[in-house]
């Protein structure tokens, strides 16, 4: 069959034509490799890098913002804690002051009471002394009266003695 035997055969390798194909393809490949494709590659790469970079930057910024907001929260919490502490301290102080006051008042009252008691005691003592003096005087007067009424000397003496004994016993 002539399709397989002549120069343009179906299943044969045509050297001259193959040379043309090889030569031109190599030339075009070289041109593509050298001049045409590299700028496209670099442009695409540049764009991709930029997109990646901006994505990364955005992510970083997001992380930063999150960090800041977390910090803010922390500060808020800290402030709250401090405020609570201060409040607590104030309450404690107030309590302390109140207690102190109460104590002082109690002490004062006790002191007053003590003073009053001491005074009463003193008064009582002085009243007793006075009473005693008065009684003694009364006794001396009564004795004088008795003596004056001329009674038996012996008898009156005995009377006075017993009187005084009673008195002292009473005291």
């Amino acid at each position: 069959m002539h399709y397989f035997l002549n120069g343009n055969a179906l299943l044969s390798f045509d050297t001259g034509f193959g040379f043309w194909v090889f030569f031109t393809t190599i030339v075009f490949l070289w041109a593509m490799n050298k001049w045409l494709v590299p700028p496209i590659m670099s442009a695409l790469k540049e764009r991709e890098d930029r997109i990646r970079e901006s994505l990364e930057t955005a992510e970083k910024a997001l992380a930063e913002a999150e960090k800041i907001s977390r910090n803010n929260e922390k500060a808020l919490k800290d402030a709250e804690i401090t405020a609570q502490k201060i409040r607590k301290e104030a309450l404690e102080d107030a309590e302390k002051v109140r207690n102190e006051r109460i104590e002082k008042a109690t002490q004062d009252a006790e002191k007053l009471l003590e003073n009053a008691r001491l005074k009463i005691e003193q008064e009582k003592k002085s009243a007793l002394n006075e009473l005693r003096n008065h009684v003694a005087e009364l006794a001396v007067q009564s004795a004088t009266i008795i003596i004056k009424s001329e009674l038996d000397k012996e008898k009156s003496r005995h009377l006075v003695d017993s009187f005084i004994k009673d008195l002292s016993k009473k005291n």
Partner: protein
Amino acid sequence: MIYVVRRALATLFFLIVFGPVLLASNADTEQNSAPIDVMGKVTDHDYFELIFGAKVYLPRMFYSGGEWYFFRDTYSALDSGEFVRGEEGGIVRADTGESIAFDLSITSHLIYLWLSLILTVFITFMAGRKYKKGIGRDSEPKGALLNIFETLFVFIRDQIAKEFMPKDKYEKFVPFLFTIFMCIAFMNLFGLLPWAAAATANLTVTATLAIITFLVTQLNGTKDHWKHVFVFPGVPKWALIILTPVEILGLFTKPFALAIRLFANMLSGKIMIVCILGLIFVFTELFGAAIGVTSGVFWVLLTVALYFLKALVALIQAYVFTLLSSVFIGMAIEEHNHDHEDSSVANAKDVALQNH
């Protein structure tokens, strides 16, 4: 699946249709009574066919008998008296009758190859100019064409190059893969034009492209690659007697399969369409004009369906050629660590082995 159906159909119709045509052409070669020149649609010619069937004859230049010859076209070569048409259709020397030794003539397939390459370069150049201007570099790409270009380019870069090659080396091969892909895709798509021919349906073209892939693969092969070829690590010494020839053979079968695959796919597509349309004439001859023309409706519808399939196959085959080139190069430039775990090539190979 589609391939198998297509291949089965192609073989069937090829044998049904081509047999009678061949027999007919054998019976009376002088009259050349075959209704359609089936193989003429896919083989190379010394003329470039234009849209309305006009033929532009291309210059011939060849080396024969120690001398270079240049002619405006085949007919001027014949007119010069130094050459006559040979028995097989080519031209031979008038004096000795020997055929041409080294034929550097411009042929139709070569024109389509050049057109594809020039289109590829032109598109890349236009896109590159826009990128240089800053569109696509500083902003998103503008315009449908630039977007299509960038989609294709990024597809080749990410899905083909980056996928099967080491991460630090793939950038070097993107221009090669992109050129090969665009060139083959354009050549295949030219084959869809009714008056044109797919240059990839020529074994010389596909074989040369495969040779270029082979050269790129071997010239960039690492030490590990050659070690795997000649002294496969991790096997006993006696096994090398079997393994080394197999590995060396494997070096050459890869580009061979690459060439044959593309060639056979493109050839079968065109032949199938021509044959199915040729069935109109076969039916006319067998059953009369009425049945022939009526059945023509069916054949034309089938051809339309096949055309869509062919458009798909044109792109798929370009993709497959590029993908396999990338896989082979990736295998050759990979630094093996003898744990074939983390390379997708090794994974794909494992999958292939399991499926076989």
